[in-house]
């Protein structure tokens, strides 16, 4: 048990630190790299919950695929240092502060209700975290959501291509 708590604290602190670095770093590439590091720390947090499949998926999809997209965007666009950009997005700042505040209130309410006080990991957790259990559940009880996800992904392909179309030089 102690090992779980120690690793939780370490991963959580590093996750917060890297998340702060994401928004404070001057250079977008440094931001992207701290975000990758942050995703690794999240994977570590999943591991402390015995969810090894989710942890690896976290690294594979977020750190391995989504961040490739972000890094490509940074490298292909080369907007340079953030300092060079105009920092006059007051409306966005307002929305960001509002959303952040809402999240803080939510967490405060949850904490005061004692909803998060039961932190003990279930005995079954280490069994539930394996891919076998997840697969068994997904493809028996949750088969229709999976189909809908498939269609959603198809929509994503078409949508992504449509968005990217404007940027591509037309053939001949």
């Amino acid at each position, binding site marked *: 048990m102690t090992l779980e708590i120690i690793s939780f604290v370490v991963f959580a602190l590093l996750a917060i630190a890297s998340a702060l670095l994401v928004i404070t770093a001057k*250079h977008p*590439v*440094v931001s992207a*790299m701290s975000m*990758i590091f942050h995703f690794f720390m999240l994977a570590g947090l999943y591991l402390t919950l015995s969810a*090894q*499949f989710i942890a*690896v*998926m976290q*690294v*594979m999809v977020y*750190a*391995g*695929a989504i*961040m*490739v997209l972000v*890094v*490509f965007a940074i*490298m*292909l666009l080369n907007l340079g240092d953030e300092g060079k950009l105009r920092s006059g997005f007051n409306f966005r700042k307002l929305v960001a502060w509002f959303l952040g505040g809402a999240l803080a209130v939510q967490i405060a309410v949850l904490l005061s209700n004692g909803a998060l006080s039961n932190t003990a990991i279930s005995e079954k957790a*280490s069994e539930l975290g*394996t*891919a*076998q259990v997840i697969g068994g559940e997904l493809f028996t009880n949750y088969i229709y959501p999976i189909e809908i996800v498939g269609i959603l992904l198809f929509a994503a392909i078409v949508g992504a291509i449509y968005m990217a179309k404007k940027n591509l030089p037309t053939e001949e």
Partner: protein
Amino acid sequence: MDSFLYILALAGIKLGIVFTLVLLAAAALVYLERRIAGIIQDRLGPNRTGPFGLLQPFADVTKLLMKEDIVPEAANKKIHGIAPIITLGVAFVVYAVIPFGDYILINGEKIYMGLATAPDINIGILFILAMTSVGIYGITLAGWSSNNKYSLIGGLRSAAQMVSYEIAMGLALVGVVMLTGSFGLSDIVRHQDGWLWNIFTQPLGFIIFLTASFAEMNRTPFDLPEADAELVGGYNTEYSGMKFGMFFLAEYANMATSSAIIALVYLGGWTLPVPAETLGLEDGSVLLGLAQFVTFIVKIFAMTIFIIWVRWSIPRFRYDQLMHLGWKILLPLGLINLVLTAVGIKIFA
């Protein structure tokens, strides 16, 4: 027996062994590559440093250590320095889930021959796929941070090529996972015991995986990221001294990794060619463990020699051909392989 110190000591010993193995393998591969290239090109290759030139890799490392480290003025120096560390770190960490044998019984306790290959970690293959996808960053950042046009093109090419082939690679592995019902590499190997190698049951998957492996390693015929004829040195144009050495080492470490994975997933891994009982070896004995280890190493070396052979025999693809092969040939083939495997399992099992 289950104390923290015991676990730590065991982990320490395993870490030491695996680390030494990886470094030795990389050194051996550097030597092999140069000698085999020599033979194929009808020349001798390095043969002066030590007997048969065996000390050549160590001479290379000494030379690289003594070389000046040149970082271009225009580069992003921090990221330029971090990139080789990422590349090599990722190349090493994959070995954590590779089983070098089954297990050895010492004082009635099962000791698994691998760093994290105990049965309760059953995500071996996924871990490798995840690490391969993270390995993209090392090369991409190296190319970008150098602020050199060749490097940038090399880095971007490498990233696009690796993501393109990762899908085909994953699809090929899905077929194997379907047969085995587990992601654990040890389980996959045990499933192939008695010459039931996956290369026979998944021949199409094997070809897809092999091709994708070449692309993931950035080796000929897919070495577009460092195509010396057009990109000078690709992403490592602006690297010199030990930083270049790190990329060099990572390339050979990756080659050993890929060979090990192919051997484990498709060539029966550490399963012995004859049943252990015929040889009179007890289950869990040290001798059996050693025999499995030797079998595995032999398979890895056979595979690496094949990879080197291909490098010195086949010319480089063009980039559009590479993308065509990845998306329009390997990906559909992977899907076909998957459906065939699924139907096959449903009919025969």
